[in-house]
């Protein structure tokens, strides 16, 4: 029982105290899981991270699920996943209740006029950092631009673009395997 509580507490804590998304939480999770509690080795944690990043969905939740599963099987997975969801769910719901009452206030409207362009800038940052990290050049630039235009300008549903991308990636693997 204590182990369930520990597991729940670790992920609830990490989720509650980190602002700005899953990537910010990773170092904290790693420290808790590999050093403080010693549930997994660093190597095991990196494996989990690898698989969590190549699966769809919320990365940190995938990490929580797999860590929980590795330690305490299915119940551990449920426990860690629920702990990760708890803080964002409760805080957003509280804000939503509160916000519904004030969103028509003229001052609040002005505040959000200021915030919206800042959000655009915020989302632009990962575009640049990912392009650099992945060393995007040549045909890859074409893919990025084509995807941007297809969804942003032609208004094609992102789901189709993602499915097409996965299909292309799978085909590429097959072609590489069968190449002489």
């Amino acid at each position, binding site marked *: 029982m204590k182990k369930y509580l520990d597991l729940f507490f670790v992920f609830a804590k990490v989720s509650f105290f980190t602002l700005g998304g899953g990537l910010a939480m990773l170092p904290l999770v790693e420290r808790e899981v590999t050093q403080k509690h010693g549930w997994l080795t660093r190597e095991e944690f990196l494996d989990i991270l690898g*698989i969590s990043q190549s699966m769809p969905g919320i990365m940190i939740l995938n990490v929580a*699920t797999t860590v929980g*599963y590795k330690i305490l099987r299915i119940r551990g997975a449920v426990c860690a996943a629920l702990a990760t969801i708890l803080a964002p769910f409760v805080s957003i719901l509280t804000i939503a209740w509160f916000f519904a009452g004030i969103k028509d206030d003229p001052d609040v409207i002005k505040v959000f*006029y200021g*915030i919206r362009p800042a*959000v*655009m*800038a915020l989302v632009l940052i990962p575009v640049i950092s990912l392009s650099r990290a992945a060393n995007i050049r040549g045909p890859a630039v074409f893919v990025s631009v084509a995807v941007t235009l297809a969804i942003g300008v032609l208004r094609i549903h*992102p789901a189709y673009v993602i499915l097409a991308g996965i299909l292309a*990636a799978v085909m590429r693997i097959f072609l590489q395997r069968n190449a002489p």
Partner: protein
Amino acid sequence: MIYWSLALSFMKIGLLGFGGGYAMIALIQREVTRFGISGFEFIDILALSQITPGPIGINTATYAGYKAAGTLGACVATFSNVVPTFILMVLFAGLYYSVRKNNAIETAFKSLRPLFIGLIASSIIVMARDIRIWTDHKAMIIFAASFLLLYRFRVDPVLVIILAGTVGLVIY
């Protein structure tokens, strides 16, 4: 029924949301239009999810679900977003040692990176259209200034949002 369509939409987002929270934005942005959430509101949700704890995916699901169908809607959207991937992860958790040495997945993922970048960039284009940024010089200035603060001076995003909100209150 609203709960059913919320569930379907967020399962779709969960299962197709590859490439991290930012890449998922484009998908959520498009899906939430089904529930009467305007482009403006979506950006506001994103802003709120940046200044509250937790991953963007959960924050936006909870908020959009609430907007569409109240507290129960928030529960339905959040759980639908999470459950399909949870099942996948549990299935994979038993298998992942055999997957780990398989670099086909890694190759596939690497070749998808330009796609993820395009997805994120597309969501910025959609936001620019929604707020008609080219008709609003003040917004353009806030955009440029925020970018400079974030990129050049590495100012904390939460601080930038608070700052931009304050500027908005003063100049609009």
